[in-house]
């Protein structure tokens, strides 16, 4: 496993685009995640009455334990940045035809795919770690008191966030393997959200029961949007076994389809 991971990382670490995309991604992740209070102040400035009706300093955005879900959900929005890196990494192998040479040189098709999947795992784990550190630091700064174990409720949103990122990267890798060209793959990725949204809205009245089973919906459903709770609405502030099972199943399906495609096609 380490050997295959090293091979793929060697391809990436000398690639300037990789550092630019990852640099921007982690910068936005860290700085963005830490700037929630600034965001609220900005909202108070542009929305009339926002700052007067609700005292923004009393919104416990960064308080334990709210912070876990707040940050896990917000940072999940940025995963498209990593996905684009994954798409570039796999489609480059097709444009440069280096996938062909890798196989000729003695990689099996399974090993080639695994090297990419392991990189996805590393990227997802690095994202989780970065967000976790930010959560701990900002939580310690803003939380008025530390009340264990209450402060740790919802910390399971981090493994869920990890699965969310990994599932989406698996999806991107699969689209990349099927389409093989970076521009088109990125467009398909962007539109797949919209297309799924339109389908979901259209069947909402007839078959609402199947909506949680949609692939992208299942990925978003892992960590539900938390902010409505500050407008006194009910939200789901825990992880359901069902959502994890569906997302895991899709992750498996994405990677299996990538495997099937690689196995069957001439390279």
């Amino acid at each position, binding site marked *: 496993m380490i*050997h295959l991971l090293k091979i793929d990382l060697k*391809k990436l670490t000398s690639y300037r685009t990789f550092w630019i995309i990852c640099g921007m991604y982690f910068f936005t992740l860290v700085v963005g995640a830490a700037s929630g209070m600034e965001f609220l102040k900005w909202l108070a400035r542009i929305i009339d009455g926002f700052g007067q009706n609700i005292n923004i300093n009393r919104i416990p955005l960064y308080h334990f334990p709210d912070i876990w879900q707040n940050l896990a959900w917000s940072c999940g929005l940025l995963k498209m940045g990593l996905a684009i890196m994954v798409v570039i990494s796999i489609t480059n192998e097709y444009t*440069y035809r*280096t996938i*062909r040479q890798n*196989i*000729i040189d003695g990689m099996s098709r399974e090993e080639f795919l695994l090297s990419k999947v392991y990189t996805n795992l590393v990227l997802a784990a690095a994202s989780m770690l970065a967000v976790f550190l930010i959560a701990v630091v900002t939580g310690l700064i803003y939380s008025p008191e530390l009340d264990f174990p209450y402060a740790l409720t919802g910390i399971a949103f981090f493994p869920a966030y990890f699965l969310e990122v990994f599932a989406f990267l698996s999806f991107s890798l699969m689209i990349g393997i099927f389409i093989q060209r970076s521009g088109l793959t990125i467009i398909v990725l962007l539109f797949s959200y919209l297309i799924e949204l339109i389908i979901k809205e259209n069947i909402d009245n007839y078959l609402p029961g199947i909506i949680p089973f949609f692939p992208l919906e299942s990925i978003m459903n892992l960590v539900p949007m938390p902010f409505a709770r500050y407008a006194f609405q009910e939200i789901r502030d825990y992880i359901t076994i069902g959502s994890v099972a569906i997302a895991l199943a899709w992750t498996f399906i994405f990677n299996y389809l990538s495997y099937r495609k690689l196995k069957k*096609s*001439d390279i």
Partner: protein
Amino acid sequence: MLGPNGSGKTTTLGMLMGVVNPTAGSFSWFGQPPTNVVRKKIGAVLEHPIFYPYLSGQKNLELMAMIKEAPVENISKVLALVELSTRKDDKYKTYSLGMKQRLAIASALLNDPIVLILDEPTNGLDPMGIAEIREIIKRIAADGKTIILASHLLDEVQKVCTHFAVLKRGNLMHIGPVDEVGKGEELVEVAAYHDDLGVILQEFAGSGVIKREEGHFQVMMKDGFHGQDLNRFLFDKGIVASHLITKKKTLEKQFLEILAEAHPTADRK
């Protein structure tokens, strides 16, 4: 391995190297089933050199050494062999075509392979580049490695190879040693300061078809007759040849003959 464009040379090699899935049939390497582990012992370059353009030659080879599980010390050795040591830290995309081909050969040699597969290694090179690559191939062959060469350059194959196979539309048309190409009919080119040379040549028992060309005659020898027999015959007649060359059949000629013989029905074999 010879064959016109689109005859299936690269596809055949692609199947042997695991990038093209065969629709039927089977093969083995060194008596073993063809797995990716076996491929690590083979050095192959198909069609044109393939490398990561944003990596240097050195880094590309390091990556390949990881895939092939080859010792890292081999990198400087193979780079020296193809005379790329001075440019090893430059990005691959800055290399000239000849340098790319040379790096490809270096990469194929990385794991001290038992078999080397080269697919048109001199394709698109200038005469100097061709000479360089040919020199490298000969040096490698002198080390006792088996080289499978796919090429258009029949002259090159005749000089470098011991056996040859001809493909046409995916079918094997011929296989045999290169040595045997010259055997069989002989063509003798002869000229002499004698007005009736054409008539006298017809008297020779070994003469087949005689053609007159500018300043000389071309005599196709019958079986068992050679240039020296003709020379003796003329000498006995009191004629001294001013020009006498025995021409053996070239691979090129045989190649074209094999392809011409290939009847459409044979294609469906």
